[in-house]
């Protein structure tokens, strides 16, 4: 029985996998083909490939709309945010993972504890703080808030990594009389490169896709990020679905490209810190 049984089991598995792959992929393909249709064609032809491919929707969002501006904004904002994020996560992760100091473990647990609170819960107070500090409509303010919100997870990943680094590396460096910043930049950063790639990708995804804080802190239209820009297009009256889909594709292509090149790191990072059994 075992042979035919095995074949039957495999067949069922394939069948289920194919169904779920279709459910995952179809909406994305639908969005892509819709963005290439004219609004009048979309009314009659919802599901099939466009009879006549048009780039008018893309022309509309990139040239007539503000997509280009939003895109540039994101491209300025996110690299700056990532540098700050990286600095905070790596230095804190190194300290928590490898150094010994009073209250280390309780502080670390507090950091983990603070990770959970939803953005909306914090938003009312964050808005007041930023208003007091003149950080509304100011990229610097958004970067600080983003780093504060996303760094605990990055720190957690870096901490679990540095905890596995052999003690000797640190001790031999200490004997040479180097200071802590030299140890950080010349020893700890280079050895953690693979993990740093992972947290950069996680940080990039978090910032690229972030909505609530940008919604709150960037209130001038010309400052908006790309995700915020398309998020606010949603629900605007008189905007054709074909145009919306072109906007969606425009915002999605960067993360998708990233996925094509860094699939291994992204999948590794998504279970960051590797949960054991």
């Amino acid at each position, binding site marked *: 029985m075992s042979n035919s049984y095995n074949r039957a089991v*495999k067949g069922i598995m394939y069948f*289920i996998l194919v169904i779920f792959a279709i459910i995952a992929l179809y909406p994305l393909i639908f969005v892509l083909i819709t963005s290439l249709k004219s609004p009048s064609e979309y009314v009659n032809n919802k599901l099939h490939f466009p009879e006549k491919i048009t780039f008018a929707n893309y022309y509309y969002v990139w040239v007539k709309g503000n997509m280009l501006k939003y895109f540039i904004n994101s491209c300025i904002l996110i690299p700056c945010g990532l540098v700050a994020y990286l600095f905070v996560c790596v*230095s804190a992760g190194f300290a928590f993972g490898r150094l010994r100091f009073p209250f280390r473990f309780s502080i670390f647990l507090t950091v983990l*504890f603070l990770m959970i*609170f939803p953005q909306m819960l914090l938003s009312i107070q964050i808005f007041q703080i930023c208003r007091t500090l003149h950080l509304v409509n100011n990229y610097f303010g958004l970067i600080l808030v983003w780093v504060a919100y996303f760094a*605990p997870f990055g720190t957690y990943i870096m901490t679990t990594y540095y905890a596995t680094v052999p003690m000797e590396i640190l001790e031999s460096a200490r004997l040479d009389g180097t200071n802590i910043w030299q140890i950080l930049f010349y020893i700890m950063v280079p050895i953690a490169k693979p993990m740093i790639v992972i947290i950069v990708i996680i940080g990039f995804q978090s910032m690229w896709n972030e909505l609530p804080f940008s919604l709150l802190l960037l209130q001038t239209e010309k400052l908006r990020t790309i995700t915020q820009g398309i*998020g606010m297009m949603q629900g605007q009256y008189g905007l054709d679905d074909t145009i919306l889909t072109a906007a969606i594709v425009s915002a999605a292509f960067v993360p998708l490209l990233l996925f094509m090149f860094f699939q291994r790191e992204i999948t590794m990072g998504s279970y960051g810190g590797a949960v054991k059994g």
Partner: protein
Amino acid sequence: MKNEAIDSYILIAPLLLLLVVFILYPVIANVYLSFFKWKGMGRATFTGFDNYRTMMKDETFWVSIKNTLVLLLYIPMGVILPILISAFLREGLKGWPIFRAIIYLPNILGYVIIGMISSIVFRKLGPLNGGLTALGLGSITRDWLNKPDLALNALGLVYGVWMRLGFGCIFFLAAMSSIDESLYDAAKIDGALWWRTFWNVTIPSIHFSIEFWIVLSFIEILARAFPFIYTFTRGGPGFATFTLEYGIYNAGFVAFNMGYASTWASVLFVVCGIIAFFQVKLMRKNTDVQ
């Protein structure tokens, strides 16, 4: 060794400073503000428990609680499906990495984009109804996002199950990769059927990851759903897809009733505090940082 302590505090100072200003302080000040009436401008007036009394009589609040509970009912499905699919994937069928990549794809795009795509898919004149009609199932087409119950369940299905499926597969595949292969070999010698092996070997070996995933699911639904709901239904129809998070947004930044919004936020704070407790407990088990 004293140096090491000073160095350490310098290294963690940026993180702590940011956390105190932008997370710890907001969480505490929030509870404080919930006892005031404040429109976001001018002076706040102390009103004691007035906000809480208003909230208890607020229909939206109870609907939000009910909605959250309905969404939480999707957790079992959101746990079982990724485990099953990862168990299929780990059999090493031909082309399995492609399936893994495709199923993971929606996770790349983030809440906002997926929310927008979903809202187009579920439109009355959208592709879902179009597809059903094309398949001759015209009778089950609905105006999904304009019927309160349908909209809420669509939210649960898309956000609670579909969107996180790929992440779940990666997560559980990683957990399964550390299972000792000899356990499977032993099961094979015993002639155990696939289902039996799955139940007796795979599941017990990954129970820690399952616990972790359940906690993560609670967090996603209670504390991360806002951007998705904002783009998917805007809390509508009416307030049929409100959650506590969405209610805070609505009270605070639509009605500009900051004090009242803080009252909702305080309830959410208590709920999140309980979940954070479990999360930290599990993360602590998982790290060698002690």
